[in-house]
Each structure stands twice: as structure tokens, then as C-alpha cells.
């Protein structure tokens, strides 16, 4: 069968189960956009390519399949970059399809030419520049295989325009994907898993640090079974939130620089830390003692390079968390964590959990708001965050019953992520569940034109905007560390957001008192389609429970 390069791309996307491509057209990727219109795949036009990449990420997190985005050559491709790097840092499967100038113009500084495979080299799992159209089916299939297996990540394929337009013999059958340099981790080493079980049995104060790897390896059920049977206290990273419901008795909160004090304290008092699917990033281990010195450390990860990268573990286990848990839990059949230890942890939880106040004082308490939002929605929603105070408030005060329901840029910390991620998630869900985008007024303004995407494609997102006319987290940083020399953190001059939402055709409301919250949330959830709820918060609302609690470590944390 004779097919053009672009037809081969689209056909292979269909074979890989792609339903939606998020993108933005230009001359170089126009052949793909053209052929998509004759396929079963829907192309959703965004307002900026960065939005397309974040939407693909939101789509991927909800469907647990690779999200696909497309952009043209040059500036289109470079606009994708932040989204690709965001996906890379959070191990999100993504395929980025970029148009490139024609083969004979590559290297000539042609109009809209950029070396995008070179530019994205540090933060793609792999990338391809197509030189021969016959490679297209193989490369696209390989890209899906690479993006979705092992430790997932983004894969970029760059297609010169002439190859997309030329005709080739399309093979009747796809070759089986076989990449000899791609080593997937086999079953975890049994004797290492036995060592883990022995270490747990001989520990007095074990704690599990749950990371995003549990979610990625689809091991939430196995993990919950492990926790239920062993009674070992669980703390989590940002990406591991919800691996056990955040309201469950054995969950003590997120650790790290912006974590809960109780979680950091429990972590520091433990004599055995079992790290599952976390790369132990600097933010995670910021407010906890030197991991190597404090008792024993077990590190379980599917990526061998993560083990020993930041911290040297006493017992390394290379393996898929699901497989490791399936081996480990039966070895601990009659084991339960010491009651004196779980009592100690419970006592810390009781002492250091603060119910946020719902009293009226002229501002919305965002922590109280989020606890009300969880209550009102029964947590049966997907929630995206931006980056800044809003992210930490969500992580610490919303109740997450399942890890897939929190969509946040944990590793890269990308402002402007939440709204497009919510759009991608909502497009994937097709209205099956509400998607709520919690934002600050700084991050909202990074990608707010994507409201146009929501309006055009009728993709509902409930937007909650915590407004303080500040870049709140930096404002707090300057208060604590720069003697209140507030520079470049005021965003006065922002538009009337309620009016702006209405201009896009969405209903909107603004609240200023905590007593208004319940009714406002009811109204937002009942609204047809997208909605913007503006909640005015104080510029001095602390990120943590109290000002300076999180950012500045204190002695008694240990």
C-alpha cells in the first residue's frame, strides 16, 4: 500500500490506541494535521504549544496511556519544551510529534528551523529525527513502547516536512518492537527482597516513604494491602500522595521542605526507612536527617540509576514496585509493626495536625477551603494544581483517596501546568468526573489563554483561583529570608478575573469570607460546564501550618 509519511504517522497512532492529539499547526506539521482530519483521532487546537504538551500530560495521567501532542518546527517545537521537561521529571508517558523543515534545508538555518532533538536531548527518554519515511511505522511504535514501559517518559519524533508529504510503501504488518539497547528490569532479586523482609522484622520503628513509582507501576492495591497487613506507618512524597488514602489511619502526610511537620518528625524518628518508587529529590529530603546516618535505608526503584544517585541505601532493590510488593507482603504474613511505634506516630499526628480555621476575617482560608472542597466533592474528582502556595495547600489539606486524582508538576515545578493539565484530563474523561484546577493568580496568568481551548472544544474545568495579588510563595520567601524586601512579587494590574471568565462564556463568582465557601462550592459544582471561583486570600497566608514552619527547619523536628 502506498501511503504518505503523514498517513503512516496517523495510521500508527491509531494502531497505538490514540484518541486525542493536542496540538498547534504550522507549515511543517500541517501534513499530520491534515491526515488526522481523515482519521478516528480528534485534534484539539490549543492556544500555545506549551498548553498542548501539558494537556497531553494531563491526558496521560488520567488514561495511563501515552499523551500525544504536536507542534510545528522552530518556535512551535521550542514552545513544547517546558511541557516535555515537566513530563520527563514526573515520568509521564508522552509522545511529541514535531514538524521539521524539509530534509534539504536542515542545517541551513531555514525559516522556522531549530534542532529540536538536540534541544530536548537532556529531558526526553529518547528522540528521533526521521531521515527515511520507511522508518516511520517502526519509529512511532518504538516511541510508544519506550514512552510507556519501564520508567515512563516523553519521546520526541521530528518529521521533516518533505518526508511527511512523500509516498512510501507501507508495510502490511508491523515489525515487533525490538530495541537491543533498551533493558527492561526483570523480576526483582529474591534474596534482596528477603533482606528487606528481615530488615523490617528486626526494625523497631519502620516507616515507608511512598513515591510516585507506586502509581506508575500500578501497584496502589498491592501497596495498600502491604500497609494493611504490616501496619507500618506511611509518609509520602508529593508524587506519592494518595497511594494510601490521605485520611487513612496509617498515613501521616507528605515529608520534605513543604511537608507536614508530623511526617518529617516520624520520618526522623524511624530506624528503618523503606523508600518505594522515589528518587529522593532535594525537596523531599530537605527537612529530614541525613538518610544514610539514621538507621537503615532500603531503596526500591525500577530505575537502577536512581539507586545511589542521591542517597546510598543499605539495601538496594531494583525492581517494579508491584512485583516487589507481590514478593514482599507474603514474607511478612505474621508481622505487625510495634504498637508502641504506631502509637508514637499517632500521638505526633494528633499533636501536629491543625484543623484549619473557618472563622470569618475578610479573607478566605485556602486550607479551610480545600478541606471543604474535599468534603463537598467526597474527593471524587480529579484535582490539578499549579506551582506555588496553591500546590502545597492542595498537597497538605485536600483529601486524596486515590493517587491518580492529584495532577501536579512535582519534579519540575512548572507554573502554568495545572490549567492545561486539567483540560487534558477533562478531555480524556469526557465529563465522566469533574476536574478541578486549583490555581494562584500568578500561575493562572501563565496559561490563561487556554480558557479559549476549553470554550472552543467544550471541555469543562472547574477553576478555583486563590487570589492574593502576589506571587505568594516568593513573597513568603522574601518575608522570611530577605527581610521583607518584596521585589517582583506584586501582580497588581491583573484583570478582573470574573469578567475575564465571563468573556469566555463561563460563569464565575468571587468570595471573600469563609462562611461563603460551602454555598460557592455547591454553585460551582452544579454549574453547567466550566466555572471560575475566585477566592481572595491574604498575602500573608502561610504555606505551611504557620509561617516559617516548613521553610526553616527547626531543632525539635528531629
Amino acid at each position, binding site marked *: 500500500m502506498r501511503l504518505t509519511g503523514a498517513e503512516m504517522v496517523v495510521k500508527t497512532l491509531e494502531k497505538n490506541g490514540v484518541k486525542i492529539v493536542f496540538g498547534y499547526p504550522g507549515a511543517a506539521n500541517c501534513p499530520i494535521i491534515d491526515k488526522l482530519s481523515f482519521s478516528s483521532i480528534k485534534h484539539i487546537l490549543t492556544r500555545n504549544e506549551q498548553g498542548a504538551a501539558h494537556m497531553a500530560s494531563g491526558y496521560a495521567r488520567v488514561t495511563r496511556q501515552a499523551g500525544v501532542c504536536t507542534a510545528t518546527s522552530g518556535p512551535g517545537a521550542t514552545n513544547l519544551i517546558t511541557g516535555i521537561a515537566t513530563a520527563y521529571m514526573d515520568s509521564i508517558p508522552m509522545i511529541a510529534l514535531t514538524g521539521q523543515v524539509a530534509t534539504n534545508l536542515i542545517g541551513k538555518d531555514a525559516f522556522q528551523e531549530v534542532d529540536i*532533538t*538536540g534541544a530536548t*536531548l*537532556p529531558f526526553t*527518554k*529518547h528522540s528521533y*529525527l526521521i531521515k527515511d519515511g520507511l522508518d516511520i511505522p517502526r519509529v512511532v511504535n518504538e516511541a510508544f513502547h*519506550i514512552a510507556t514501559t519501564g520508567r515512563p517518559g516523553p519521546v520526541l519524533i521530528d518529521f521533516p516536512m518533505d518526508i511527511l508529504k512523500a509516498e512510501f510503501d507501507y508495510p502490511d504488518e508491523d515489525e515487533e518492537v525490538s*530495541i*537491543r*539497547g*533498551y*533493558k527492561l528490569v526483570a523480576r526483582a532479586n529474591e534474596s534482596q527482597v528477603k533482606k528487606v523482609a528481615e530488615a523490617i522484622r528486626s526494625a523497631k520503628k519502620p516507616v515507608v516513604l511512598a513515591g510516585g513509582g507506586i502509581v506508575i507501576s500500578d501497584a496502589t492495591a498491592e501497596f495498600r494491602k502491604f500497609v494493611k497487613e504490616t501496619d507500618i506507618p506511611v509518609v509520602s512524597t508529593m508524587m506519592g500522595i494518595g497511594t494510601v488514602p490521605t485520611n487513612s489511619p496509617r498515613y501521616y502526610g507528605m515529608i520534605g521542605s513543604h511537608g507536614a511537620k508530623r511526617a518529617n518528625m516520624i520520618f526522623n524518628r524511624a530506624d528503618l526507612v523503606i523508600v518505594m518508587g522515589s528518587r529522593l529529590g532535594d525537596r523531599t529530603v530537605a527537612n529530614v536527617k541525613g538518610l544514610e546516618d539514621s538507621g537503615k535505608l532500603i531503596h526500591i526503584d525500577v*530505575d*537502577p*540509576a536512581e539507586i*545511589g*544517585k542521591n542517597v*546510598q541505601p543499605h539495601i538496594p532493590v531494583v525492581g517494579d514496585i508491584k512485583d516487589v510488593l507481590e514478593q514482599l507482603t507474603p514474607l511478612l504474613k505474621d508481622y505487625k509493626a510495634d504498637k508502641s511505634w504506631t502509637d508514637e506516630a499517632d500521638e505526633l499526628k494528633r499533636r501536629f495536625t491543625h484543623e484549619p480555621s473557618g472563622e470569618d476575617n475578610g479573607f478566605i482560608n485556602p486550607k479551610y477551603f480545600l478541606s471543604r472542597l474535599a468534603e463537598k466533592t467526597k474527593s471524587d474528582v480529579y484535582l490539578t494544581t499549579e506551582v506555588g502556595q496553591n500546590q502545597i495547600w492542595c498537597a497538605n489539606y485536600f483529601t486524596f483517596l486515590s493517587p491518580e486524582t492529584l495532577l501536579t508538576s512535582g519534579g519540575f515545578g512548572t507554573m502554568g501546568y495545572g490549567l492545561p493539565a486539567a483540560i487534558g484530563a477533562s478531555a480524556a474523561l469526557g465529563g465522566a468526573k469533574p476536574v478541578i484546577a486549583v490555581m494562584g493568580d500568578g500561575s493562572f496568568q501563565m496559561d490563561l489563554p487556554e480558557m479559549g481551548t476549553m470554550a472552543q472544544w467544550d471541555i469543562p474545568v472547574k477553576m478555583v483561583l486563590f487570589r492574593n495579588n502576589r506571587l505568594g510563595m516568593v513573597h513568603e520567601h522574601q518575608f522570611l529570608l530577605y527581610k521583607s524586601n518584596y521585589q517582583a512579587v506584586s501582580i497588581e494590574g491583573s484583570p478582573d478575573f470574573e469578567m475575564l471568565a465571563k468573556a469566555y462564556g463561563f460563569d464565575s463568582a468571587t468570595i471573600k469570607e469563609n462562611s461563603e465557601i460551602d454555598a460557592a462550592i455547591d454553585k460551582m459544582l452544579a454549574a453547567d460546564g466550566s466555572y471560575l471561583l475566585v477566592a481572595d486570600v491574604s498575602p500573608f497566608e502561610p504555606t505551611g501550618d504557620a509561617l516559617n514552619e516548613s521553610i526553616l527547619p527547626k531543632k525539635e523536628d528531629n
Partner: protein
Amino acid sequence: MERYTLSVLVENNPGVLSRVVGLFSRRGFNIHSLSVGTTQDPHVSRITIEVNGDAQTVEQVSKQLSKIMEVIKIKTLRDSEIVKRGLALVKVKVTSKTRSEVIEITSVFRANIVDISSNTLTVEITGHDRKIGAFLELVEPYGIEEISRTGMTALERGTNTLKIDK
């Protein structure tokens, strides 16, 4: 800090070298020397990289390199396990008086004279870093016009090989 030699088999594709080298600079690892060439299989190239570091760092380098799709196989080798050679072309200044002295040094090192002019001698010397270093030290007083050196390339001693699993 110790010297390790990484022998890396890679797909002979364009761009592989930049993936490998980019990883070193990005993750703050230092390359002491590097050489690349094809193997008996035209689809496979061998990159030989000398790195200085402690065992943990070198292990991390090797693990990160393994993640590159086009890296097929890696072996970390110590000097005692390998034969290692590099090549240097050295253009030495000579006069009619000093020419024979330089030729003599060259022959002691079993190096070759590959070009000659009235004022210069170009010497090709192969060997371990230390041998080349010693030669350069000896000819330095005559005046070195130019040096061009390759990275080290290496093979394991004995019957050990770096084979691709079928």
C-alpha cells in the same frame, strides 16, 4: 579518585556520540579521554571513555549511560585488566645539530618519524598515557610546535570480550 575505563558498545547511528557526551556534561561527570570507532559489526561502534572518579561516581556514570537507548552494552574496566593505547602526532622543532638527537629519542621509544622538513620532525607515537608523556617530556626542550593526540582505546586482556547478547 581513580582512573576507570568505560568500554561502551553503541548503535552506529548519527547523534549517538552527542547523547553520550551530553550526559557527561549534564550530570557533571568529567571525561579524561574519549575515542570512537566502528567494530567488526558495521552497525556497532565502540566508545572508549576514561574517567576519573570514585567507584560510586563511576557506577552512576555507567548506570546513566545504560539508560541511553542506543547504548547496547557497557563494561567498567580497571587498568590492570586491559591493554590501553593512544596515539600522538608531535611536530618537534629541529636544527641540523639537534635532528639526530630527536631521531635517537624517537627510536628508543619505538616511535615513527612520519614527516620531515628542514626545521621540523613529525613523530607518531603510540602507547599508554605514561609512555607518550615521557616522550613529550624528553622532546620538550627542543621545542614542540604542535601536538595532536587521540583518546585512549582499550581491549580486555586474555579471552574476555564485550559481547552483545543475542
